[in-house]
């Protein structure tokens, strides 16, 4: 059985699993990291959105064998440590998570880890481009929320981006 090595939330992990198993199942079924959720398995619903080397991606669409040992995977569980301590909020979380709490975004909560990871990546991308988040940017987000929390998600992204 191939040994797969990558960096998960700041720590190097090694797991014995076939190359073709998608990272989502390695995280959830083998490593017990359940923040990234299954919603479709075909990179459509975005409930599993996580980060690879600081950019948003969907582990349901990545065979684990494609990861390099120095690839840094961040799931919602590792998000707070992506910012310096002084940037973390009253719950010790990433500013985007704190904005999510202040605006009481979640309803069932199932899609929210993916929503937050997508929001952080969007805010970072817009910052790299030297501009503010627009309504048009928010319209590009593909993450589905079947509870329909979109209104508060939009408000929280703008708020969280300002805090980042």
């Amino acid at each position: 059985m191939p040994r797969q090595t990558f960096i998960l939330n700041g720590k190097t992990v090694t797991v014995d699993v076939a190359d073709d198993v998608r990272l989502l199942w390695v995280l959830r079924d083998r490593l017990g990291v359940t923040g990234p959720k299954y919603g479709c398995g075909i990179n459509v619903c975005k409930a599993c959105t996580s980060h690879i080397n600081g950019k948003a991606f969907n582990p349901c669409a990545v065979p684990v064998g494609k990861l390099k040992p120095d690839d840094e995977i961040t799931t919602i569980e590792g998000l707070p440590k992506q910012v310096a301590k002084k940037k973390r909020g009253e719950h010790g979380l990433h500013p985007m998570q704190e904005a999510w709490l202040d605006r009481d975004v979640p309803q069932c909560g199932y899609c929210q880890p993916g929503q937050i990871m997508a929001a952080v990546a969007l805010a970072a991308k817009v910052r790299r481009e030297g501009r503010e988040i627009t309504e048009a940017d928010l319209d590009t987000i593909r993450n589905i929320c079947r509870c329909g929390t979109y209104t508060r998600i939009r408000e929280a992204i703008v708020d969280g981006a300002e805090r980042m």
Partner: protein
Amino acid sequence: MNTPHPAATPPTPPALGRRSFLGYVLAGTTLVAAADLGLGEAPPARAEIPTPPQVPELYDLNDLLTDAARPTANLITVVIREDGTATFALPRMEVGQGITTSTAMLIAEELDLPLEKVEVTLAPARPELLFNQLTGGSNTTISTYTPIRVAAAVARAALLDAAAIVLGDTVAALVAKGGVITAPDGSSVTYGELAGRAASTTSRAVEVQLKGEADFSVVGTPTNRVDALAAVTGQKDFTTDLQVEGALPTMVCRAPTLNGTPVRIRNKGAVRRMPGVTHVQQVSFGVAVRARTFGQCIDAVRALDVEWRDGPVAGESDATILRRLRSAQLPMPALPDTPLAQTIKGDFTFYFRSNSAMDTNSAIADVRADRATIWAGLKSPVVAQERIAEKLGMSVDQVEVNVVTAGGSFGRRLFFDAALEAAEISQAMGRPVKLMWHRADDARVGRGHPMGTCRVQATVAGQEVLAFNQSLTCVETDFRHGLGEIITAKAADLPAGLGNLGFAETIFALTQEVPYDFGAVTQTLVETDGRFNTGSMRNIYSPDVRVASELVVDQIAARMGLDPYEFRRRFQRNERLLAVLDKVAEVGEWGKRMPAGTAQGIAIHKEYKGVSACLVEIDCRPATTGRRIREAVTGPRVTRVTYAVDVGLVINPRGLEAQMQGGINDGIALALTSSLHLRDGHFLEASWDNYFYTRQWNTPPAVEVVVMPSTEKQPGGAGEAGVAATFAAVACAYARATGTVPTYFPINHKELSFEPKPYVPPIPQSPRNGLDLTS
């Protein structure tokens, strides 16, 4: 959990007087306070004229659900622990609607305990609760409002009694606040310190007073959800997140026609030898595979070569079902169409829709020779427990059913399809299983909202509406979950669908009304076809009925030369409805000038003891409808929504606002984008890029929800209250913007906006190009 019972039956009726109720202190090593879940006040009946009162005004679905509980004498308990926290196991299901938060608020209020010291969990199936463990009909807060407060008040009274002894003062002199009881001399004792002292060696009945509304400091205050921190950190556990020893990932290969069944597996051995696969098992509804990871389950399901027997709707399509519905329609009454009395008609078709939640159907089952343990998101756990026991050939007490928070429901989890399947699979394999439905199955095979037609006929003379008839004809809505227990569930299961039809007719009669002063009003329901997997979907009949009604209302208004808002005011006979209508007109700027191709639409709704009004603005101009987004439906966009809601007494305004915001997105989806297409015996939709629930590019950039101050003393239902008025307002706005009244919904149903995925294999493979798509 064992349910303690009081030592003696109370000699007096539960309600003793104004805000005075009987509760119990139960024997225990720590303080256990209890109340009868059947406690509650019947709302006053009220009739208005001149349209004779319609059934829901006097007695609605919520009264049925609440009254169904009264004959049972079963207890809910608030337990005070030595760490000073209060715990409560709610016999209802949290699926995102926020009832654990509102329940914690009620307990915090009556106990004078900080909210963070109240822990609300979900009770497992409690068969002794009979009717009273069903989460549906927006009934949770209505039915539990009084008993939860009584139990908390009993706990507070017992803590005060114990404190009086400890502090050497009288109860009347003590002050309870923030989980601490203080005497006039400044000495104090915490709830945690009192928990053991307040415990009782015997069970006894006690009389308590509840706080008056004027004294509320928690109830009515906007409060963030108690489970939000867990949700945003990935720590909130859903069924598939639970780690149960030996319960390996399990998925099912299903037939290429809806509800088809397996005949035989042609390559069982080869699939069994695939990497990670432990079991391949033919079961009654398909072929189950169990593997080390879900990814390996997907591979195995795709590799299976199975001979199938067609399901009951093989060969059917939207068009054949529509013909069947048309032939089942009742004749509408013949009405005069003379210069004095004109008839205005509407005839609308509503296609199948899916209540697929983000969290697909799932369950964990560990079935042994002599017992079974189940974990799943269940809104009717008592029926689930009884049906699973029946399926496994066990007695009910051999089956433990644990209720897990679910990632949405929208009615889906009134049923327990995955739990029943997981139990069958686990028994057949002889191993624990963690069953998860693939999204493709959840969309195609999972329960949905039935297709139907709704005809409306109004008779108008001058400026008066003499009669208003409405007839809904639809594919059967499955109510076989009954009222939460097997007795009524079995009643719904009588031969030839008669039992379920009786349920459907009852629920239709108890929920539907025409909220206008329209003279002679009739509403009828015909259900015709029981072959589909259906159920209630975030509002049962109301969205379709209200859309048909409000579209015709706009036409009557036009015939009379009245503005839609002014017309609705003139024919309104309910003060609360008038208030929400006026509120949205004012806040949403009804009647403002709008560019061609855009318009406002306004609609009202009344259900579950609440009233709501919605005013939307829609943009149907080519620049908007022509937006191109990959794998998406754009189309008209609702650009602004103003929503006013009066549900009665509001427990948590922030939670209520959230429920309305969600319902608004559901209403928009129903009007504009989301439906299932039946073709050749199967639904086509297999992905969120096929089933077009509202996305960020569809959602309104501007949404304002106004929570009305209510004069009502009792809370109403919230979970479904946002859908019907929004759906109707969007339909009316679309008709006004385009000059064309839609005759079917959603308006995009006749354009297929995606390439259907194959049925064999039944589920798609996961892509491999995820690293090329980072952002």
